[in-house]
């Protein structure tokens, strides 16, 4: 929940509010929960909807500063990756990836976070976002293409 909210909003405080609201909502609605949908998808759907509302409102606020650090601002932490090619600066690569995620449209961003970051299945992502699996795959295809393109310059520099 927190990972999704923080990646979507890039604001640790706002993300904390979303997670708190979600937990309260889950607690209130728990007696009526019949388990037709998975608990994970139900909870993630609440988080995703709240994030979307906040992002919609944010359209009217000022943009981000140039030195914006997506990882630090959102309170996310990058674990060291095993078998990482030492020729490539992992920290820089991760920062670049986060900026690229940040530049994605929200619908693609939430699909990437749910599938690739949190490891939900395609069915679960589709259920969470209220879409068909084909639509999820389409969004993921576009998102991954954009992310790969954003990372290409650093990867090429590392391999040369």
């Amino acid at each position, binding site marked *: 929940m927190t990972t999704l909210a*923080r990646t979507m909003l890039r604001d640790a405080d706002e993300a904390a509010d979303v*997670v708190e609201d979600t937990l309260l909502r889950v607690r209130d609605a728990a007696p009526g929960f019949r388990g037709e949908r998975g608990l994970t998808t139900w909870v993630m759907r609440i988080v995703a909807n709240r994030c979307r509302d906040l992002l919609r409102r944010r359209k009217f606020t000022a943009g981000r500063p140039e030195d914006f650090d997506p990882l630090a601002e959102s*309170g996310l*932490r990058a674990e060291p990756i095993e078998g990482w090619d030492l020729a490539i600066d992992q920290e820089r690569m991760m920062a670049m990836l986060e900026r690229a995620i940040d530049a994605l449209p929200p619908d693609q961003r939430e699909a*990437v976070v749910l599938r690739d970051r949190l490891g939900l299945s395609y069915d679960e992502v589709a259920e969470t976002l209220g879409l068909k699996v084909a639509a999820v795959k389409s969004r993921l295809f576009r998102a*991954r293409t954009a992310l790969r393109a954003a990372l290409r310059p650093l990867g090429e520099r590392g391999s040369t």
Partner: protein
Amino acid sequence: MNHDRDDEDPGLTRMLRAVRAEADPALWTRVRARIEARRRVPAPLAWAMRPTALAASLALLVASATLAFVLSTGSAVGTEEDYATLTEALVAERDAEATPVEVEPAPAGGAASDSGSGM
């Protein structure tokens, strides 16, 4: 273009999965505090404070105010002639009082004088 194929990139996925939110130890404390705070508010007040209830009462207020306005203006308008100013209304009223009402005498015999039948 066919997007229906699985285009997962293991390298990209590995990088994406390496990033996680750090656990927030105060999260549950804050949630519990909010639950406690909600418990302290009496149930009817808590119900009335819900956004839906607030929106419904606001809509009701606007509707009743509009209805009251329409009814009050509706009763005032249409009883008398419309005058632009109070002075005009007073002058018109005075004129109406000063002008004697002329009553036409009823025609004798009940026949019209210019019917042409007598010539």
